[in-house]
């Protein structure tokens, strides 16, 4: 068993139009810039993938990564908690022009819905958003005198993930706080594609410190010295 894929272009070659894609990261931390830019490269050459539904905590920043995908018209919808950033132009313009749909989800509910998708829990109750406009139309229930909103699981066709160390079975560790949504998204996608900064043979990661077990990972590609979204933005880079 070897889940390693030779090139980053190959890693994203199968993503079809209309796919729902979870993208790891919280702002720039954990954002798989190289996988995203490989999708953009493919879109420029072939016109695909487009009509995508993106799931991420944010809606892109500046003119790179997710923001660039939105700017050049690859996304039809985004599911996120916070579609603002230091430079939110790409999303804001599309949103105000009615060219992208927004499903706004409280951050903890977003995380739990993704975990539920990965864990086979079709629905759960949370106090979050009860009585607010974000709960409108959702079933509610009372437990022990307290009110809760019923939330549904969230799954995806693909997850694009940035990890630190990976082995050929797909076991992963993450760097510092860059794990954030990624271990959950690995669980919740039909096909999880991971860029790792460093590739090791099975046994190269201590079994006690594996964060994402390989069962949740379908493909890995090595991207040594990956770019960091925040650094690119501060340098004024653009991928549009």
């Amino acid at each position, binding site marked *: 068993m070897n889940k390693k894929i030779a090139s980053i272009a190959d890693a994203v070659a199968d993503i079809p139009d209309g796919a729902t894609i979870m993208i790891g990261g919280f702002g720039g931390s954990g954002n798989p810039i190289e996988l995203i830019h490989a999708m953009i490269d493919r879109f420029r050459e072939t016109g695909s993938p487009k009509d995508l539904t993106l799931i991420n905590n944010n809606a892109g920043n500046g003119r790179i990564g997710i923001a660039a995908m939105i700017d050049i018209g690859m996304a039809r919808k985004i599911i996120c908690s916070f579609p603002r950033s230091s430079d939110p132009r790409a999303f804001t313009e599309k949103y105000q022009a009615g060219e992208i749909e927004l499903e706004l989800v409280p951050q903890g509910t977003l995380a739990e819905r993704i975990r539920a998708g990965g864990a086979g829990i079709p629905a759960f109750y949370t106090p979050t958003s009860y009585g607010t406009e974000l709960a409108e139309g959702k079933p509610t229930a009372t437990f022990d005198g307290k009110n809760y909103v019923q939330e549904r699981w969230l799954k995806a066709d693909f997850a694009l993930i940035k990890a630190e160390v990976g082995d050929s079975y797909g076991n992963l560790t993450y760097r510092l706080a860059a794990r954030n949504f990624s271990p959950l998204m690995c669980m919740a996608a039909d096909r999880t594609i991971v860029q790792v900064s460093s590739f090791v043979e099975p046994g190269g990661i201590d079994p*006690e410190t*594996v964060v994402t077990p390989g069962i949740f990972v379908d493909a890995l590609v090595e991207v040594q010295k990956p770019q960091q979204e925040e650094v690119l933005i501060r340098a004024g880079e653009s991928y549009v």
Partner: protein
Amino acid sequence: MTDGLNNAQIAWRAAQDIEDGAYVNLGIGFPEMVASYEVEGRHVTYHTENGVLGFGPAPEPGEEDWDMINAGKKAITLKPGASFFHHADSFAMVRGGHLDVAILGAYQVAQNGDLANWRAGSRAVPAVGGAMDLVHGAKRLAVITTHCTKDGKPKLVEECTFPLTGLGCVTRVYTSHALVDIEDGRFLLREKLPDISLDDLQAMTGAKLHIDGDVAGLNAPVLDHA
């Protein structure tokens, strides 16, 4: 009438259908025997409910580390690339459908895929473990079992009479006498022992065996019944 395959042979037959790269959970007891017959050249990763992926065979006696056990509380070893995780993550793997195959034992399997394998009588202390989770956990849920009970009663039945473990969950049954798929609420006979007639096999079976296409011979090498 033939005795059919012994347990080792049933386990061997089930092992032949485990694909390269599969993630597999083997139920406690008899199903654990399937791991002994891993097909050469295929890489199979075994999952145990208590939080290990990628474990290997039992250690030599005296070499056990009792903090490293399987769901049956037996000592295990690790293969390179193994991982540990907590119980909620472990059952996320199960309930979330991340396993490719789960292989369990059975008291009864019904033609609609219902499985009874957790409680035979009402006197004993009831104990369920992970059985009710596992039946909803894998892309394919296979059962391995003798075709009949020791006193000759069929285990493949129209409706389970023992308490259910799960509804409509079993997709394939490997028995001492046959290999049967469950599709659309029917038992579909895929393989049978070469030396048993269809009529005799049907007589040992508690529900109609349907035939759709060829019925192959159920064969296994000579294996000692451990």
